[in-house]
């Protein structure tokens, strides 16, 4: 009796074990697609414009996390950036050199920029986002220097892991960011091949998903109809 009972518990144990592995396992569901997630980070100090392609650990991170993942030397005070890549006040008051400070811009991906008055901790960065930090003078967007018109593709090579190399004038602080899950463009590791084939917008994949998803949906609806009919015949 107890043997058969144990046998019955086996599937439950199996299902739980699968879940446990998923939760505690090496690579989690939510971060599984990580290798394919990238965002562009533009850092401008004087004449130097760095274009960094940062790998994201999860589908959505904050602007602050984006900078953190870049591996650049930095210091924060809450959502405000005090010092980045060696520029900015080293200690104490973040705005010690006001009106000179790190301005925060959010790109539209086509080269346009929006000044962000809110802190970087509350903004959202997704795959394909472009953000910029500019060390400049001026209290708001009218006087602060606007970043150059750069797109996502200017920092990250399209559809592949080997993003374009850093723009001119970059160099210096190379990211030691392997542990941070990101790094300067070029240092990013290759993403899984499987990811590329199903990548959205990649050629015929749209058709595949349209047909496949449609078929699955139709099948499911058929199942619903079947169950409905059986119910109402009974």
């Amino acid at each position, binding site marked *: 009796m107890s043997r058969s009972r144990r046998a019955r518990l086996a599937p439950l144990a199996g299902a739980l074990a699968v879940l446990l592995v998923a939760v505690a396992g090496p690579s*989690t569901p*939510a971060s599984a697609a*990580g290798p394919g997630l990238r965002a562009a980070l533009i850092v401008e100090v004087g004449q130097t414009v760095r274009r960094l392609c940062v790998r994201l*650990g*999860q589908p959505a991170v*904050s602007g*602050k996390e984006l900078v953190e993942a870049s591996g650049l030397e930095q210091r924060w005070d809450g*959502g405000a950036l005090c010092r980045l890549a060696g520029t900015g006040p080293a200690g104490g008051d973040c705005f010690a050199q006001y009106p000179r400070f790190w301005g925060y811009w959010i790109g539209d991906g086509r080269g346009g920029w929006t000044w962000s008055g809110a802190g970087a901790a*509350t903004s959202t960065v997704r795959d394909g986002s472009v953000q910029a930090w500019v060390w400049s003078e001026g209290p708001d967007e009218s006087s602060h220097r606007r970043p150059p018109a750069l797109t996502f593709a200017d920092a990250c090579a399209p559809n592949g892991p080997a993003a374009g190399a850093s723009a001119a004038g970059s160099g210096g602080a190379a990211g030691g960011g392997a542990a941070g899950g990101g790094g300067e463009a070029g240092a990013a590791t290759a993403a899984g091949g499987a990811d590329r084939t199903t990548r959205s917008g990649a050629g015929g994949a749209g058709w595949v998903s349209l047909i496949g998803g449609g078929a699955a949906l139709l099948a499911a609806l058929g199942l619903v109809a079947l169950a409905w009919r059986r119910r109402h015949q009974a």
Partner: protein
Amino acid sequence: MSARTAQRALGSVGARGRLVLAVTSMIGLAGFAWPLLYGARRAGPDSAHAADAPWLFAVLVALLLVIVAVEHAAGRLTAKTVAVLAVLAALNSVLRLPGGVAGFNALWFLLIVSARAYGPTFGFLLGSFTLACSALVTGGVGPWLPFQMLAAGWVGLGVGLLEPVPRGGRAEVLALAAYGIAAAVVYDLVMDLWFWPLAVEGPLGFEPGIGLGATIGRFVAFHLATALPWDLTGAVGNAAVLLTVGGPALHTLERAGRRLRFQAVPELVELDQPATPCASPAAPGDVTREAPEEDELDRGGKPSDRRRGARS
């Protein structure tokens, strides 16, 4: 009303039982408060686990309840306690049915009064069992259930805080009503904290790594915006019912507690051995009269023929 003694439905809980309850409550609290703790932390590479957290903690809290049940129920619940728990849980679930009596959700009222009458540990169990029973009746089993059970258990347990309030009299009812308001508000707040990471995202949503202050700020804003009006009406309703019905309900429960005698200890009067039946020193009627009369005479000094009257 002279001093009434609490009829504890559960025997002495003991240091160990209290420790288990305390530790499980601490862990359970962490299960609720993870968004706050987690929100305060700098997110690392695995911050993606935020999505798994509600489910992980649901399992964790469910296991906690199992442990509380084993510690406080397994082999310890007498037939009387089981029966009273079951009857009150059923009554409570009925009062919690959608719509309820006159649209009022009387769940907290009965739980608080029962915990006051039969002890905080009983209150913890009653709170948990009520939610379990109610979920089964209405088909409300879900990942939220372990959290609801734990939180309702706390509401029952927390009545123990009122232990210094003297029994009987207006002060007791007032204290219970105040507790009723606090309990309803805190319960809703705590359950909302569980629901919050699932329910919203964006500027009012949970987001890892934005700092404790910001997390709390966002949560409070969300709670104020979505739940507070309902919470407050519920809490005020609770207090009102506790004020008007709390006293009599407490009486009813305490009467039943005396009748049930959770810890009945019979007094066995030794007659002489059957071998010498003629040497009986006292008529049996005398024997029972010799028994110490407990202070349980009804008002007006008339003896109640409680069980006899109701039964035969």
